[in-house]
């Protein structure tokens, strides 16, 4: 079974530019989570999809962040326009059943905004 994959592994962009991160969950996993780790701080929850629906987006920092999961498969997280404080590692995780408290994580995307 293929694991959770994320693309790109590393992105360096200028302030004001747009970046789109992608996450492919494990096949058959309806639940998809995005998290972010800013250097020196805890990993923070961003949002949770159940299939294509946003279940909880309480952790999204502001309206410069837009997450989608069309068709309930892969998800994208777009940052537009990027700011310096958006730098960090963005993790994606998936689980088959939200009742099962185990999430499988991708390797993360390291975003650097200059």
């Amino acid at each position, binding site marked *: 079974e293929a694991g959770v994959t994320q693309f790109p592994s590393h992105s360096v962009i200028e302030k004001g530019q747009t970046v789109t991160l992608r996450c492919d969950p494990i096949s058959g996993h309806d639940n998809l*989570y995005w998290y972010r780790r800013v250097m020196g701080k*805890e990993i923070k*929850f961003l949002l949770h999809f*159940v299939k294509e629906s946003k279940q909880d987006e309480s952790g999204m920092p502001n309206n410069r962040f837009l997450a989608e999961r069309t068709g309930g498969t892969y998800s994208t997280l777009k940052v537009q326009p990027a700011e310096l404080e958006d730098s960090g590692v963005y993790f994606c995780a998936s689980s088959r059943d939200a009742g099962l408290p185990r*999430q499988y*994580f991708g*390797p993360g995307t390291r975003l650097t905004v200059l």
Partner: protein
Amino acid sequence: AQTVTQSQPEMSVQEAETVTLSCTYDTSENNYYLFWYKQPPSRQMILVIRQEAYKQQNATENRFSVNFQKAAKSFSLKISDSQLGDTAMYFCAFTPGDAGNNRKLIWGLGTSLAVNP
């Protein structure tokens, strides 16, 4: 507010020895889950061990075991017979048990563990 605290930013241990990583948490929930995740230098986050709060017995997975003290809200991880491959960042995490279908995790800052040969 629900919080997770890891007070040891860095630790080191000699190969084959035992090390304990500490974690405390704060919640008003009675039912919840606690986790230790490991992130090796290759960056993939891996679940090490999971504890359900309603279970009094401490979870064990091979060389990894926890000391779960519910009243004290403490959840430490013990690694026995440390191996070089245990070198990683270790995160303690929490999720409420009655969260419906949202299992968002609340994380500690992490402890960087180095196993020395």
